């Protein structure tokens, strides 16, 4: 390949940048994101801050963002087909920022006791987590977007303060982005990189015309939205770029090697989530030549990447086959696979047409999103089933599992209620707390109406509420039912006393409970898990009625713990499944680690398919599998059967790590010796060496082992 030497150098540089991040910042339990460190000498003080060090307000966000972008260091690499890397995140410059809890300048102390009691991750004040429609930006360019905002502002009465403020802030945001692009073009010029200088100078104002310009435009939007508030969604990349690719190729401007190199640079620039393949509105498959080139570029990365293939009946076998082979041969944890049939049939149950359901694509860790049309709080709101169970367990009269379940369901209802109240509060104030200045620009509605996407500007409000710790709680009910009620080996009081002391003086009770039947390996375990999901889903959906808003609200249940299994486990004491206090909760919709002695990928895939909430959001199957010495072709055959079958049974999303267990174990002991080892922690990929010991342990423990 003509670009192989550039690609080699770019990959080396990426590894150096990653190592430098680890050296300077220590463990990072998040997506790699593609960001790079600013120069150590770089200092910045934001112009607008509250007394407490945070900031809020529509105009303030616009001012601070523009200020930051006008000072953001430029990044130009002569090997790269594109320019720019992001170095800061404005939303995290607010005092008291936490990944699980954002600053929010509006009082919700009245909700805190219940949120803490049930360990709710409320999502209040959390940003991004819905998808832009890049097509809007690719059509208008930054100049067109600015004109659109200014035109709408001119048409809006001055008395409409909310909209006027939003438009002014949007102008600041665009001007900030354009300033960084302009300065980058100048730097490229200075370095004698004429083509990069020309492309960037043009993109300050104009929409892209070529494939390379389109990739650069997307990279700039990604950089801007990352700097603003991390954002992170992508889009249907093959459809977005297809016209540029086909036009350039027909005109003889590029060949496929050029295209692959530009795509490589786009994927290297940022780890945004892109879907390829899958149906269009009418159900026809969207795969084209560029879908394969995207996969080819991803394989060249040898780095973190979040490409997802949408699997449906019309998907070309070749794309599916190449995706699976990429997963098996590269062992870089991509692509992911998204199950079209269950996602579409589920979303339709919310009252939407199937044509719309097909446009709702897999972006983000567990997200489903209608690009540019929907505000959805994906992966932000979580109910910790384990904590809810613990509350019920401590309060129960301990007479039967049925009575305990009724009490659990009562508390779950209260937990869902307080979750809904949190969402209502978020929707009422988020536009002032942190408007979505970047995502608004690529959405249908916010600029047109002068309302932030969080405040009625978006077309649809399908908000995600995820349950976590399903297997932990299902296993607790199953163990009690088996050991206390069926076998009568223990009494409820025996188990209660043991959990109260964290099994300190009851190792036999702990072992007995831990060795009980479980979700994934027994009919009763599966039945408990399905019952919990069914009730939770009904409660979540019904809760939408209690949320006052200017547009119809739909709450969509899902099952996802992100990588919060460690954090959510810390708040929960010992439980009747033999889990000790503080240990991690179970992963997403997965059965508990070690649920079967043989690992049984098929049992796991069938179990996860059986607990799908079924309204268009995901309950992903998280699978770490070591194929041992199995031939790659055989391994690919097994994986294809697994993916097809899981989706046929109703599965929605598969996050798969094909791993070499010995390598992971060695890397766990000496991470820095494996700087290029990539793992998919949950929905996201990361450098294994950059994870904290807790997160590394999480991945190691999940590996499904089979002896050949």
């Amino acid at each position, binding site marked *: 390949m003509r670009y192989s030497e550039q690609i080699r150098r770019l990959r080396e540089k990426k590894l150096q940048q990653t190592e430098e991040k680890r050296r300077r910042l220590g463990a990072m339990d998040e997506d790699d994101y593609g960001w790079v460190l600013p120069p150590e000498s770089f200092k910045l003080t934001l112009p607008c801050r509250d007394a407490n060090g945070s900031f809020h307000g529509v105009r303030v966000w616009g001012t601070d963002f523009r200020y930051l972008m006008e000072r953001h260091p430029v990044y130009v690499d002569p090997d790269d087909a594109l320019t720019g890397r992001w170095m800061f995140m404005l939303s995290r410059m607010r005092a008291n920022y936490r990944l699980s809890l954002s600053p929010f300048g509006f009082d919700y102390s009245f909700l805190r006791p219940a949120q803490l009691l049930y360990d709710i991750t409320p999502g209040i004040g959390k940003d991004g987590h819905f998808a832009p429609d890049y097509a809007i930006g690719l059509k208008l360019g930054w100049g067109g977007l600015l004109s659109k905002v200014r035109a709408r502002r001119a048409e809006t009465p001055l008395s409409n303060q909310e909209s006027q403020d939003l438009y002014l802030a949007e102008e600041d945001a665009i001007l900030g982005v354009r300033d960084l692009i302009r300065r980058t073009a100048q730097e490229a010029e200075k370095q004698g990189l004429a083509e990069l200088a020309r492309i960037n100078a043009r993109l300050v104002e104009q929409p892209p015309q070529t494939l390379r310009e389109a990739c650069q435009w997307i990279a700039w939007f990604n950089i801007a939205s990352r700097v603003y508030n991390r954002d992170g969604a992508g889009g249907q990349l093959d459809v977005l770029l297809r016209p540029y690719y086909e036009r350039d190729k027909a005109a003889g401007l590029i060949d496929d090697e050029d295209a692959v190199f530009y795509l490589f640079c786009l994927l290297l620039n940022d780890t945004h989530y892109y879907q390829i393949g899958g149906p269009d509105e009418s159900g026809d498959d969207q795969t084209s030549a560029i879908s394969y080139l995207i996969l080819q570029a991803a394989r060249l990365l040898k780095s973190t990447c979040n490409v997802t293939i949408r699997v449906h009946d019309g998907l070309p076998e070749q794309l599916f086959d190449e995706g699976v082979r990429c997963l098996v041969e590269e062992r870089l944890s991509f692509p992911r696979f998204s199950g079209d049939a269950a996602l579409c049939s589920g979303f339709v149950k919310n009252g939407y047409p199937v044509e719309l359901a097909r446009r709702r694509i897999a972006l983000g860790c567990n997200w489903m999103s209608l690009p540019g049309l929907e505000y959805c709080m994906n992966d932000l709101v979580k109910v910790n089933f384990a904590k809810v169970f613990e509350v019920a367990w401590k309060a129960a009269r301990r007479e039967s599992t049925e009575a305990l379940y009724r009490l659990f369901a009562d508390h779950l209802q209260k937990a869902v209620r307080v979750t809904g109240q949190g969402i209502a509060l978020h929707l009422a104030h988020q536009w002032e707390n942190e408007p979505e200045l970047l995502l608004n620009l690529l959405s249908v509605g916010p600029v047109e109406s002068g309302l932030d996407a969080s405040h009625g500007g978006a077309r649809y409000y399908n908000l995600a509420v995820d349950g976590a710790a399903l297997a932990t709680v299902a296993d607790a009910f199953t163990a009690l039912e088996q050991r206390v009620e069926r076998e009568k*080996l223990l009494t409820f009081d025996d188990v209660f006393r043991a959990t109260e002391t964290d099994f300190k003086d009851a*190792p*036999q009770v702990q*072992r*007995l409970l831990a*060795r009980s039947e479980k979700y994934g390996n027994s009919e009763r375990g599966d039945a408990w898990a399905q019952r919990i999901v069914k009730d939770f889903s009904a409660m979540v959906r019904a809760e939408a009625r209690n949320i006052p808003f200017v547009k119809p609200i739909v709450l969509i249940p899902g099952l996802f713990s992100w990588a919060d299994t460690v954090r959510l486990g810390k708040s929960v004491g010992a439980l009747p499944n033999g889990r000790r206090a503080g240990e991690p909760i179970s992963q997403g919709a997965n059965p508990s680690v070690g649920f*079967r002695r*043989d*690992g*049984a*990928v*098929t*049992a*796991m*895939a*069938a179990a996860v398919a059986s607990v799908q909430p079924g309204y268009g959001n995901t309950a992903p199957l998280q699978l770490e599998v070591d*194929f*041992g*010495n*199995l*031939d790659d*072709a*055989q*391994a690919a*055959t*097994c994986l*294809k*059967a*697994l993916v*097809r*079958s899981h989706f*046929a*049974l109703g599965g929605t999303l598969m996050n798969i790590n094909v791993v070499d267990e010995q390598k992971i174990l060695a890397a766990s002991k000496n991470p820095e010796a494996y700087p290029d080892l990539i793992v998919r922690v949950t929905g996201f990929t990361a450098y294994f060496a950059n994870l904290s010991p807790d997160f590394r342990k999480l991945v190691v423990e999940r590996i499904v082992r*089979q*002896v*050949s």
Partner: protein
Amino acid sequence: MKGWVTDIVRGSFHDGPGLRTVVFLQGCSLRCSWCHNPETWSAYPVPLFYPDRCLGCGACGGLAEHADRCRFGARSLSANERTADEVMAVIRKDRPFYSMGGGVTFSGGEPCCQPDFLLALLKLCRAEGISAAIETSLNVPADVLETVLPFLTVLMADLKLADSERHRRATGVSNDLILKNFTVLQTAPLSIIVRTPLVAGVNDDDANMEQTIGVLKPLKTLAYYELLRYQPLGQEKFRALGWTCPTFHAPSDERVRHLCRKVRDADIPLVVDGKKA
């Protein structure tokens, strides 16, 4: 119909094509000292004891015959009696995953040591359209083999040693019956995989490989021949049975490469430890 089942493993990658359910049956007529599953040798269940799992609860009174009282996995019996319907109920759970060539593999022990039970299961699989395979030592009566063959799509046969006397010394029985059954397989209309567990000093010599190649060449439907380097996977089970575990080693990489060359020179498709060689 009931039989002794030592284990059922779901979703296996390693026991035939595609994703497979593997049903391990009790009983084997060979006594290979390097065996991974020595608890299956007896025709009937045998007690196993894993001291490190014992919490000293006293439920078993320290007696192997009370293994069923152990709740902690320290004491167990090597097999449970199950009906064919019970086994099929487990198989059916994996059925959605049998696309791409997957199915059921009956293994052991030697699955043909329970011929009636095996046949009943094979018939049920056939009736439900489930592809079936067996992993066999071929040290089985010819009439049993001929009865089960029509129900199989894949047959995986071990050939430990091609010389009869050496085979007897290593496994306790001669291979006369095995070699006779290989001749039956020469024209059998199903996919055949032959495997040799390579143990240093036992069967990794040139003479054995040359004789083995002689057995393989006439097989018209041989999918491939697989060499599996010895792994000490049976050691914990030997100890749990209260037996002394003999020490074995895998041949050196150089030795394996040499043997591979011989197989390839004979134009026989070869797989080593799961990978095409």
